[in-house]
């Protein structure tokens, strides 16, 4: 399993070690600058997503205010918007020719940027702003699930023992929430590391960009592979941090403690502030970019109608996403289950290596995949010629199966962390009890294990489904001839810089991504079940 998932990374190691001729790669002069900018971006996005996600989760679980029930699911909405789409929409809004600066010029009577100052959206802080606004839901989801499960009982205990609300918050709730915070922030930061499109658009010199020009312009794949492995090391550190944080979960109270956190009713100014915060976050994270896309899409459809290819792209995208979600959940269940049973350090290390796919920039991952798959296809064809006298052609490379494989490698981390968190929280005792009472392995699986994990399974499937729909770089390289997904469709239009034309499939990505997000939110029905991401 670890081998199958780790194949692209191993291929990269092989390329980096065998054909490196010195120069380039880690010797790049811009590497320090890229490291600095990537580090700054990670720090900014980490802090911002932690703050926004935590406060949002805290508000909806511990207070009641007008619109709380809506806010509870609305906070998840930005998850459906890929960072590159949000980036492009925000630039349209805030650039010189956008409505905001237009209004500034109208109000001040100015005509040129030489006459007034306006913060540049295409900048490092601009990138951090846009990314934080679409990535905070990871933190929100993990923190909210956590608050619903845990801090209720302990916070109540603290209050009963005479602690003030402030003291209970700072001494009990915040320290206890650290693992949930770290889980969410890690997932958000992995997204940042992976994102080439948005980062390039904002003119941020990221590590990913250095990997890219080393490979493309200097035809130095070994150098690029070395850099990619450095990138993986950074991400491995992030993942390790996340897993380290999660270790502490075993100290927490078991799930059976069904004490809901008491919700204090807000009124007056605090209520206004809570509503304002919710409106602002959801507005900036979802309404503005989605609205901008909708404006473009309406203009495009009014002028040119709907392109028939979009419908087939939609169908293919959904089929691929369902396949990827299914496989990732299955594989994630296996790796998480394995980690739960066997606690040997080597096994755990291997499993962690297997989940590193998320760390590799999509295009580099695709190259890491295409090389061994092509070689394997060669072997298959040789065997075919030898045995039956005919070559079957390409079986693996350029097939939908290879594409689903790439998604599985990339998003295994997501399903693995979600499921492993779910398993830890549920605990082993129910399974052990069933076995002790004489149930067979299969019966335990179907009657106890899977049903009790259902929220986590659904959460994992939802996240992988949404991620797959948004995935672009690996899809571009690996998809079969003639197959288009919504994301490749957007890319094709955006590359031609036809942003209005790109808006239609872009809006569809958001819409399709919303379906499972809302469904999961709905199934949670007033907080009865567990939250979708752990």
């Amino acid at each position: 399993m670890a081998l199958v998932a780790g194949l692209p990374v191993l291929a990269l190691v092989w390329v980096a070690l065998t054909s490196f001729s010195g120069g380039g790669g880690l010797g790049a002069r811009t590497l320090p600058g890229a490291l600095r900018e990537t580090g700054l971006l990670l720090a900014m996005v980490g802090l911002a997503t932690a703050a926004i996600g935590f406060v949002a989760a805290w508000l909806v679980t511990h207070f009641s205010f007008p619109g709380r029930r809506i806010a509870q699911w609305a906070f998840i909405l930005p998850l459906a918007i890929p960072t590159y789409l949000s980036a492009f929409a925000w630039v349209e809004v805030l650039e010189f020719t956008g409505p905001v600066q237009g209004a500034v010029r109208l109000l001040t009577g100015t005509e040129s940027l030489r006459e007034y100052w306006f913060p540049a959206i295409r900048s490092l802080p601009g990138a951090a702003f846009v990314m934080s606004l679409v990535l905070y839901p990871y933190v929100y989801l993990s923190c909210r699930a956590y608050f619903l499960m845990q801090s209720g009982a302990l916070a109540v205990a603290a209050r009963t023992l005479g602690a003030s609300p402030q003291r209970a918050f700072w001494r009990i709730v915040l320290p206890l929430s650290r693992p949930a915070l770290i889980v969410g922030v890690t997932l958000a930061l992995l997204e940042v590391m992976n994102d080439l499109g948005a980062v390039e658009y904002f003119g941020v010199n990221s590590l990913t960009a250095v990997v890219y020009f080393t490979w493309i312009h200097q035809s130095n794949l070994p150098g690029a592979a070395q850099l990619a492995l450095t990138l993986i090391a950074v991400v491995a550190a992030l993942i390790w941090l996340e897993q380290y944080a999660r270790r502490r979960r075993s100290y927490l109270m078991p799930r059976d403690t069904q004490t809901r956190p008491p919700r204090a009713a807000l009124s007056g100014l605090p209520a206004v502030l809570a509503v304002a915060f919710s409106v602002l976050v959801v507005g900036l994270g979802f309404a503005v970019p989605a609205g901008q896309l909708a404006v473009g899409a309406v203009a495009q459809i009014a002028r040119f109608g709907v392109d028939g290819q979009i419908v087939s792209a939609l169908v293919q995208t959904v089929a691929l996403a369902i396949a990827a979600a299914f496989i990732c959940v299955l594989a994630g269940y296996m790796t998480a289950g394995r980690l739960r049973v066997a606690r040997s350090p080597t096994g755990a290390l291997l499993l962690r290596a297997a989940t590193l796919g998320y760390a590799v920039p999509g295009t580099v991952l695709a190259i890491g995949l295409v090389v061994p798959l092509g070689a394997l296809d060669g072997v298959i064809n040789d065997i075919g010629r030898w045995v039956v006298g005919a070559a079957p052609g390409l079986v693996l490379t350029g097939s939908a199966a290879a594409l689903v494989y790439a998604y599985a490698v990339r998003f295994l981390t997501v399903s693995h962390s979600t499921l492993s968190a779910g398993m830890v929280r549920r605990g082993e005792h129910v399974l052990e009890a069933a076995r002790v009472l004489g149930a067979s392995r299969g019966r335990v699986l179907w009657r106890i294990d899977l049903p009790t994990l259902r929220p986590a399974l659904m959460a994992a499937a939802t996240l992988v489904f949404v991620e797959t729909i948004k995935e672009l770089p690996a899809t571009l390289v690996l998809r079969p001839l003639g197959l288009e997904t919504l994301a490749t469709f957007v890319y094709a239009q955006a590359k031609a810089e036809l942003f209005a034309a790109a808006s239609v499939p872009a809006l569809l990505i958001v819409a399709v991504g919303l379906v499972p997000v809302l469904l999961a939110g709905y199934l949670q029905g007033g907080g009865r079940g567990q939250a979708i991401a752990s």
Partner: protein
Amino acid sequence: MKHFGPAAVVAAVVLAASGPAAAQSQIVNIYSYRETGLTQPLLDRFEAETGIKPVLLFGGDGLIERAAAEGENSPVDLILTVDIGNLVAAKELGVSQPIDPAILAPVPPAYRDPDGHWTALSMRARVFYASRERVSEQSLDYDDIAGPEWRGRLCTRSGQHVYNIGLIASRIVHLGLDGTRQWLTAVRDNLARKPTGNDRAQVQAVYSGQCDLAIGNTYYMGLMLTNEAEPQQKQWAQSVRIIYPDAGGDGTHVNVSGVILARYAPHKANAEKLISFLLSEEAQYLYAETNHEFPILDGVAPSALVASWGELDADPTPLTEVAAQRAAASVLVDELRFDEGPRN
């Protein structure tokens, strides 16, 4: 393995639903770096005339590597791409084979592979977009923008973008590595802002007053002037005029779009028919009209709009010589930390 049973079923279903159309023989399989909106009208015309159906895989970087990994089993017949770097890389990676010399004969030798593995199909020039309001010079050379009078007035996209890599590589051919280092250092310090955005964004920056002179490809001017979907771009384009650098000297740097014949092309005859079609006067005219590029054939005139910007005096240096300096150009951009912006 039994755990993968259902997974394999799902994968097989997806595969069956979307496998490539390999059964028909009257097809030509294309990996394309070019925007579909641009190539589709041409391919439609080709299909109508010959009955051969083009099957397209549109993508970005990585398609040539994919063809290389697929090896002799690869379904690809032709690779359509932009930038001289991709054309040369395809040959270096061994994914190409010689095209029938008779088909390539009309193409000027500077714009095709000496061994006939690829040919250019159209040209674009890397020019200056000068503010109509704030730039008085009527003619300028690449060397001129290194002068102190341009401090804080230039805009360009990332130095590592293929278009700029091509330009800098051609500078290395003319000035040598040390000369180009000095030139690029001066240009970097004349930038008004850190390189960001695409070529159109540079024109927008001139329009908004952030800078006075941008470096960009010619066809963007045509695309912006005729952009009905986003009419505000017409205003950006109208705020600038095109200056062809080095006209009368070394000539203006040009890059190309081109086509590669795949080494293991299963439909080689169809592929050569398509190349021949793309080099026909009819296709060359269509190309020039829809994308505002320069035709590669001497006998075909550019579109009226393109002609109105003046006459192109293209740098006659063979493109393979320019391509040979691309890695050096990329290392130089990295060395000078061009993309981190001016350092004054």
